[in-house]
């Protein structure tokens, strides 16, 4: 009895200490999980025009005038191709005077008319259109036709003539078919990190061109720091906000901080297929600028990107529905475009935005 009485308190003490000790343990399960969903600034947009660019350039025929140029005469036809480019003279020739372009991003045309190979400038639609660049492309088509400079000459005519003559007649680029809110930006910090210089620059260009309204903005669902597996899921978030016709994106860069992401090309291919079934018409995938400051100095990331990106590019380029456009940002990224080696400064955003917009103009995306 006595011994039982002395054992009971001891047993209770043991149990009490055990329970107390267990409660003293901390838990690892209680995340501070107040969550927030990123919506991205959505704005309606009225503007947009599309363009059907790219159709074969009828101008080629008109380039017949090339013969004239052969003599090396100036291509008189070259009335100011406002949008355009200076019309190439031709091999024999001098530049088509008419060709100078007012709005033209690239008045490359004339120069290239050598041998009739690429009279890029020539055909361009001209100038009334703010999208001078388009004109330029047209020229290319024509140039090819003309052995002779003549093409150049005519091309300059093209400048006068409404875009139609160009290889990608601006006339066929229908504008206003894509609203700003139907353009979705996704990816990671390159597009997500505030201030979103890349997006702002694209929108500035679009507003100048009348593609979107002054108060319009694209939708941005990019989330900083996310691997490709999460970037893929951002498309679902985008769909929740309405129809998506055009996507501007990156992805895989975060994965490349640790490896070359063997799964990324497959994930990208799956994403493109999903986009196709959800009405996306155009995708612009941007290859990252060289990482580091100065560009290329982040050796590990660069090495992994150099392995992954060549695998992503063919996935993009093989996609016809949606059409996938590969935009390599390495050539436009210069010293001063980043301070942290990853994210754009104002100048970096300008260079990136201009490169993307040029692609959009060239292929008549969300115009």
């Amino acid at each position, binding site marked *: 009895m006595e011994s039982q009485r002395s054992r009971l308190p001891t047993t209770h003490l043991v149990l009490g200490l055990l329970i107390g000790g*267990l409660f003293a343990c*901390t838990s690892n399960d209680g995340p501070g999980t107040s969550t927030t969903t990123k919506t991205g600034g959505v704005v309606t947009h009225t503007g947009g025009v599309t363009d059907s660019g790219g159709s074969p350039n009828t101008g080629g025929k008109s380039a017949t005038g090339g013969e004239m140029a052969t003599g090396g005469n100036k291509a008189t036809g070259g009335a100011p191709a406002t949008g355009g480019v200076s019309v190439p003279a031709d091999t024999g020739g001098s530049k088509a005077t008419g060709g100078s372009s007012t709005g033209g991003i690239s008045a490359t045309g004339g120069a290239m008319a050598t041998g009739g190979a690429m009279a890029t400038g020539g055909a361009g639609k001209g100038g009334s259109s703010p999208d001078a660049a388009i004109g330029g492309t047209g020229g290319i088509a024509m140039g090819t036709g003309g052995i002779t400079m003549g093409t150049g000459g005519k091309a300059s005519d093209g400048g006068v003539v409404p875009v139609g003559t160009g290889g990608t007649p601006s006339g066929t680029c229908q504008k206003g078919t894509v609203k700003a809110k139907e353009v979705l930006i996704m990816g990671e910090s390159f597009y997500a990190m505030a201030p979103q210089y890349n997006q702002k620059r694209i929108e500035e260009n679009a507003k100048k061109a009348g593609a979107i309204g002054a108060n319009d903005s694209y939708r941005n669902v990019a989330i900083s720091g996310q691997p490709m597996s999460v970037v893929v*899921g951002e498309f679902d978030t985008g769909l929740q906000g309405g129809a998506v016709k055009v996507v501007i994106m990156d992805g895989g860069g975060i994965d490349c901080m*640790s490896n070359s992401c063997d799964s990324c090309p497959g994930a990208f291919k799956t994403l493109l297929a999903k986009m196709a079934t959800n009405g996306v018409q155009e995708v612009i995938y941007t290859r990252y600028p060289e990482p580091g400051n100065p560009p290329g100095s982040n050796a*590990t990331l660069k090495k992994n990107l150099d392995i992954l990106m060549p695998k992503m590019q063919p996935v993009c380029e093989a996609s016809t529905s949606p059409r996938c456009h590969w935009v390599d940002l390495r050539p436009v990224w210069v010293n001063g475009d980043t301070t942290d080696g990853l994210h754009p400064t104002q100048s970096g955003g300008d260079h990136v935005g201009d490169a993307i917009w040029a692609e959009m103009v060239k292929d008549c995306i969300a115009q």
Partner: protein
Amino acid sequence: MLIRSLAMVMTLMTMTLLGCGGSSTTSTSDPFELQGSWLYLGPWDGEHTLKITDGSMVFTALAGEWSSNWTIQNHDNGVHHFQLVFKSGTGTYSPSGSNFSGTYDLNSGMLAMQLADGLGSYPSVQPTCTENGSTRIRNCGLYMKQ
């Protein structure tokens, strides 16, 4: 008998405490494995760098408009825990609070760090700082080793 019971109690107490697994006192003497400079990647806005020494964490906005300095009260490399106590700050600094318990995930130079208010329980951490697809988790940050 009494002595034997007491010995058993002491043994069980020791085992129980060891079972908590999060005691930092045993490993604080090891250098903190996160020491170094880190660049913030997201998922929230606010570009900044994070400099970690064995005894402090300093968060500094990339443009320099804010900074905060924290004392690492203890850390445990084994279970990826640490505790922070506020030391000083300038501007509208981040993180905002007086002390935190943190859990981290470290993978090939990528760091995911989840903070929870107070020095009580440690939070769990998602390596992407997102959940349910693309919902960002509060007080979670992703960093790249510089």
